[in-house]
């Protein structure tokens, strides 16, 4: 099996999908990211990341119902897969373990 890697922005999007739990779709992800990052984010960048994450198997999606908003287009809700969760866990563990190795003295 190919070992998938995760880019920085992809990781953020993946985290955000996981955080939004079942309510995550393009625009809400975009807005939450902008709020956290305190800067403008491209919607197309979000979509590209979502597409790549889905291709890698970290995300799955379903369509919501039709509403009068959005020109009658359905929302596509994303949720994290087990694989995605494991990836996030691995990333987190990796970072924490390295973080812990930082000698305290450095910031004296």
């Amino acid at each position, binding site marked *: 099996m190919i070992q998938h890697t995760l880019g920085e922005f992809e990781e953020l999007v993946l985290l955000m999908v996981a955080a939004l739990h079942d309510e995550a779709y393009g625009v809400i992800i*975009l807005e939450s990211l902008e709020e956290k990052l305190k800067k403008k984010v*491209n919607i197309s960048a979000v979509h590209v990341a979502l597409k790549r994450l889905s291709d890698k198997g970290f995300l799955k999606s379903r369509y919501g119902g039709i509403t009068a908003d959005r*020109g009658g287009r359905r*929302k*596509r809700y994303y949720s994290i897969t087990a694989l995605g969760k494991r990836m996030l866990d691995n990333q987190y563990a990796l970072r924490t373990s390295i973080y812990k190795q930082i000698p305290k003295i450095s910031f004296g």
Partner: protein
Amino acid sequence: MKAYPPKNAVKFLRWFCMEDYVEEIEGDLTEIFEKEYEISSRKANWKFSWRVIKYFRPEFIRSFKSNHQINHQTMLRHNFLLTFRNFKRYKSSFLINLIGLSTGLACAFLIYLWVSDELSVDQFNKNGSRLFRAMEHRVRATGIWTSPTTPGPLAEALVSDMPEVEYAIPTSWPQPTTLSLNDKNITALGRFAGKDFFNMFTYELIAGDASQVLKDENSVVISDVLARKLFNTTENVVGKSFDYQHESQFMISGIFKSMPVNASDQFEFVGSFEKYKKGQDWLLSWANTGTQTLVLLKPGINVDEFNKKIADYIKVKTKNEITYRTLFLKGYADNYLYGNYEDGVLTGGRITYVRLFSIIALFILLIACINFMNLSTARASRRVKEVGIKKAIGAARKALVVQYLSESMLMSSLSLFVATFIVYISLAQFNIITGKHLIFELDSNRVLLFLGVTVFTGLVAGSYPALYLSGFNPANVLKGRLSSSFGELMARKGLVVFQFAISILFIVSVLVVYKQIEFVQSTNLGYNKNNLIYFNLQGALRDVKIQETMIEEMKRIPGVENASSTNHNMTGHNGGTYGVEWPGKDPEDKTEFERMTVNYDLIETLGMEIAQGRSFSRAFSTDSSAIIFNQKGIDFMGMTDPIGKVVKLWGKDRHIIGVVKDFHYESLHENFKPVFLIVEPNNTYRIMARITAGKEKETLGNVELLFKKTNPGFTFEYNFLDTVYQSQYENEQRVAVLSKYFAGLAILISCLGLFGLAAFTAERRLKEIGIRKVLGSTEIGIVYLLSSDFTKIVFVAIIIALPVSYFVARYWLNGFAFKVQLQAWYFITAGILAMVIAWLTVGVQAIRAARVNPTQCLKNE
């Protein structure tokens, strides 16, 4: 208010984006757009479009490749099979298309053959681009007159004065002459030319050296055909001699191969110009014109600049004596197609007809293509189910386009065969009409061209139906909902209107051309051209006494009503002079009077009418110094009571004894011009005689006996004046005959189309007709119902075509100084004719449809 994102951006997104993502992306973008719209509508619009463009990246662009492979061979076979089944099933449309397209193609090919032949005239010279003819613009009171005649010494002077000139030669116009060898007399067309003639032109010499053959003044170069006529061979002929006009001997110095038929100058022998000059002193003066001068410039010389240099050459050479003649060079080969000058400006010539017929060919082909389009789209309703099912099982639009295009291509290829056959069998007739020697031979260029035209025709004819049929929405057509939109209907009707407008234009043209020709033939020329013969004075007859005796004896032959001699052939400008002086003449005036030197009785022989005074008479001995003018001449001089007044001609006094009514001596393209007549039997070139109608053969036999007796060794060659008169209108006659045929064809093809459409409409409305009949409609009512639509279409065509044809007709007639008046009935006739033809065509279909038995057509549903 609800906000909508920019339409085009959405369209673009939907077009390029992968299907899986369109929904999500469009939705999200719209949501953002709606939020931003509240803040600023303009910015939101702009941002939306910008964002859409950002999605134009590999991740989201869909694949444009068709995802299933087509087996091309099978598809092709399938297409052909369907095409043939369609042809078989709808035989009438098939035949209509075949006849229409093949006659259209045949017509285009014939015209192509003619046009390419016209364009090839005089193109056979290798030095063609450097070969020129010297011409002159001459200023006259009536405007500038452009003439190909130049003074005799011009060629020699050009060679010695102008370094740009490689060769320049004087030459005479080809004339029929009598040649004799032992007892054999034959008539041959001959000309005289300067010694470099064969260096300039690409006439292939079978024997002799190009620079040597015309060096000796008694040498002559003959054509291979003439050599065979004289000696029955072309071998060992060089060095032999024959008699020319029974007065001098020529020695053959070379033989040239007869020139191609598409050479405008045709002649059988060339003599030396030195010989021609002997005894013709007028050729030595710059004041007289009468020779052609041909010039070969050195390579790289710009003719326009050279023309500027020689513009006042005549003035310089005559030491400012002659100031009204401007010399210029014109491409030798150009003269054939571009030969008409008006007031010193080139106005075209035969090229007009070349262009005209090219346009006609295109139009006829177009009409034929329109038929195909119309019938195919009209028939579309029969085939919508086919299209619907094909599309539903997944046929791509491209495949359908290919199918219909291959159908029309097959149609045009079939038409090509039929057209080739038509061209093959009609070429002989076409040659007679056009006076050409066209041969239908296929070289690779022509094959390519014909194939090209066929493919083009197929594409044009097939494009509209192919795009139209393949564009159906399968869901709609399978439900049986096919509403032809207003636009389509208009397009179909528009095409028929176009066809009929062209046909009406043709009908009017035919009417006008025929009326004008009838007018030309029946117009009173000011003399009676019927039963007039003339023959040239040659040999012994050039002696005035023998000539006078001949005339006297001719008059005694029963059947000869009158005879005389003249310098003028009555069919064109023969020669003029501005040497007429009268009291009050403007010394600067250079208007030429046409000069007629005649014998006594000529006015009576021709049947000219005397307006004032009297004709020449032997009873008055002073008539040798008398002069007669035509009315135009008198008006021009501004005389009120001319009889007895004295004018000077070339410095000598002449008293006016009479005035003849204006008569036409040029074609009716030209207006009347001033003419004078004087009695000078020794300056006449031909005998004219009027013979009694009905006894021509006998009379001519007797005249011939007399001719042979007085002029032994010469053949009696005569012309009827009216035949020569007709030949002035050769071009018009050809246009008349050709436009008659083309009009016929255009109408035929248009009617075929209309016939097809009417048949189709009748078929589609069969049920309606059945119901109408059941409810009590009469047959007439149904015929009216079916034909009223077409009547409207043809009526619109008439309204469009009549003004156009009026302008075209007026333009053509403007070339004539004397012309028929355009009368309303020409146009009314054309309109009614078109309408009647259309009614007949539609009527046949309408009546057939109206007589249908309602039970038959309502039975099955």
